[in-house]
């Protein structure tokens, strides 16, 4: 036989729960419809809970002194099929277009409705001292400038209105793309008209769709360029490195020497790689260094983990493997994330000097120029001697680091490269 739940009723608009004072039935008892079977107490009154229908009490789940929420099932009545059927919803009857017809006059509505239209010194003196006045110098004085403390740069050339931004989103343009537009709006702001003129101007010029990796690099560089970046440089003698390399097997490349030197120098000067976010300088727990590798149409930067704690000999295999994967563009996400600084061996392009841009989530980038034989003055011999020299550069986020700090870090790297056996 079907069981119909006995529920805690909503006894009062604001009632959320009630406490049971008495239960007058037990399982097996026959009950009639509307019989009071449970007494409950609210903050307002003691009241009876009634049966939902006639039948036999199947179960009581509630206890005296227990408090139950409105709607809680307190037990069940075993009811006849006929009684239970009342609780079954019938097939939906669509709401009526008009109220039911039972009430007198409903159908004759038109008869009684609208009639047809024709066509279509006194003590009232104001005491001025009593008027409310703002006391001079009161600490309740309101700032009259009417200006909110908004960071500089939200107006003028740096400001893009919602309308311009919406158009840029539509065309997948970034602010960097609009660098070529001299804004004609207030304080040099780029207006929608400027944008449309600019877009009209490039219309018809040869264009092609950049590769995904190109787009990725472009995005990273653009984001990085939002920061004040600076570069310092120094010469380094590569002869010790080249001599050391000749003795090793497998042979680490010069870039790996530089990477290891950077890692050790950062272990000594950990603040140099800190990232500034909001009011906090964030430091990484491990010294993981990225290596910029040229792949087709872009750059990949695999990361060498714990480069300060692993000897050069032990790093070589991993380095070779990662560089290979990078060239073949087979790096996975975990191989490129989490670096705190990177190294760029632009010397391999035959370049002596450059100002590479750090990755957007890193503060530092160490650049290594091409080594070449140069005459160097040897004081002890009193003459020039040949030596292999290269330029190393350190690009940094000037918010985190100054020229002095960057210089000290770079000098230490050069020192370490002078004693490659220790790497």
């Amino acid at each position, binding site marked *: 036989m079907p069981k119909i739940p006995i529920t805690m009723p909503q006894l009062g608009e604001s009632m959320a729960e009630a406490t049971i004072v008495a239960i007058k039935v037990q399982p097996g008892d026959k009950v009639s419809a509307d019989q009071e079977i449970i007494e409950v107490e609210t903050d307002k009154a003691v009241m009876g809970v009634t049966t939902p229908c006639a039948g036999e009490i199947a179960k009581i789940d509630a206890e005296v002194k227990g408090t139950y929420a409105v709607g809680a099932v307190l037990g069940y009545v075993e009811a006849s099929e006929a009684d239970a059927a009342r609780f079954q919803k019938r097939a939906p009857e669509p709401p009526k277009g*008009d*109220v039911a017809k039972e009430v007198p006059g409903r159908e004759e509505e038109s008869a009684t*409705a*609208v*009639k*047809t*239209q*024709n*066509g*279509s010194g006194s003590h009232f003196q104001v005491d001025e001292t009593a008027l409310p006045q703002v006391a001079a110098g009161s600490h309740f004085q309101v700032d009259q400038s009417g200006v909110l403390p908004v960071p500089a740069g939200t*107006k003028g050339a740096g400001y893009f*209105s*919602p*309308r*311009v*931004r*919406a*158009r840029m989103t539509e065309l997948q343009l970034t602010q960097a793309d609009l660098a070529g537009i001299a804004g004609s*709006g*207030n304080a040099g702001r780029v*207006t*929608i008209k400027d944008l449309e003129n600019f877009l009209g101007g490039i219309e018809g010029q040869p264009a092609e769709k950049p590769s995904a990796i190109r787009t990725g690099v472009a995005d990273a560089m653009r984001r990085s360029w939002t920061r004040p970046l600076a570069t310092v440089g120094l010469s380094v003698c590569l002869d010790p490195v080249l001599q050391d390399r000749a003795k090793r097997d497998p042979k680490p490349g010069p870039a790996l020497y530089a990477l290891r030197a950077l890692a050790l120098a950062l272990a000594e000067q950990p603040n140099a790689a800190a990232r500034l976010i909001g009011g906090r300088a964030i430091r990484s727990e491990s010294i993981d260094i990225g290596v910029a590798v040229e792949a087709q149409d872009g750059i990949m930067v695999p990361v060498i983990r714990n480069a300060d704690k692993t000897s050069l000999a032990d790093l070589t295999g991993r380095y070779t493997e990662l560089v290979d994967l990078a060239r073949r563009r087979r790096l996975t996400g975990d191989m490129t994330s989490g670096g705190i600084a990177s190294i760029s061996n632009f010397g391999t392009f035959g370049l002596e000097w450059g100002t590479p841009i750090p990755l957007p989530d890193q503060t530092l980038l160490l650049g290594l120029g091409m080594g070449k034989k140069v005459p160097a003055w040897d004081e002890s011999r009193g003459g020039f001697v040949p030596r292999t020299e290269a330029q190393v550069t350190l690009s940094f986020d000037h918010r985190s680091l100054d020229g002095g700090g960057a210089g000290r870090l770079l000098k230490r790297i050069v020192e370490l490269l002078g004693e490659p056996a220790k790497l």
Partner: protein
Amino acid sequence: MSVTYLEAIREAQAKLLREDDRVFIYGQDIAGKFGGAFKATKGLAEQFPGRVLNTPISEDAMVGTAIGAAMEGMRPIVEMQFADFSSIALNQILNNAGTQFWRTQTPCPITVRLPSGGTKGSGPFHSQSMEGIYSHYPGLVVLTPATVEDAYTMLIDAVAIDDPVIYCEHKYLYYHLKADALPTEKLPIGKARVVRPGRDLSIVTNSAMVHEALAVAQQFSAEGIEIEVVDLRSVKPLDTDTVLASVARTGRLLCVGEAFPWGGVTAEVIARVASEGFHLLDAAPARINAKDTPIPYHPNLWSEHRPNAKTIAAKARQVLQE
């Protein structure tokens, strides 16, 4: 021949009484030779005996009676002596008229005329603009005609609408606004009107402020700045499409309202533009309203309390320069 805003309202009522048996006018001091505190019904009681009826000073019962008559098939027009006094009838308007159709499927076609807005020396209780309050509640249509033509056609339309209509007529415009003749064409209820095209800034406003905005637009035009002025006409429903289309043309929005600043029509327009048309904006949308104090009596204070051509111009400049 010329016709004032007030005469247009009177003529509209005369036409309604003449052409529709269901129409009657119910209000204080509107009958007899007196013809209403503002003469909006002057001569009508004599012309239409038994259909222009004086009531006791019972705003609640005036509207309640109109509701009953409307549900019985009539088309009553209630004249509040001043919009301000309709606060006494708020319960009937909001809870009885506004809920009637939703609850019982019985239309409640009452038109409540509210002589609204400020005039010099009227003070706190004879100057209010209450369209915001009425628009907040469901079930009502709220109109704010700003021209002689709209005063005429919108009142005729209001009476034809099967729902309760709050018709806010501006007292300042009664005599100050004149047209050559009664209109022969009309814009439907629910449509806003671009009363002056422009490209640099949209001023969206209603009622008497339309004229202040037009004065400001005229002034800026001399500098080569073209302000578009949108007259909402109907506050509820609000013609969001026309407003957005205007903002799409200009990229800048200033809302001007004579009502108090907290919430209300200007806030609603800005909310809709910000949420639906954020991408159209070149500057943060701005609004200017009356000050957040009761409406002052003295003309010097009163003219500073409400937005005026000077303060609207200053605000417009601010939005244009942002």
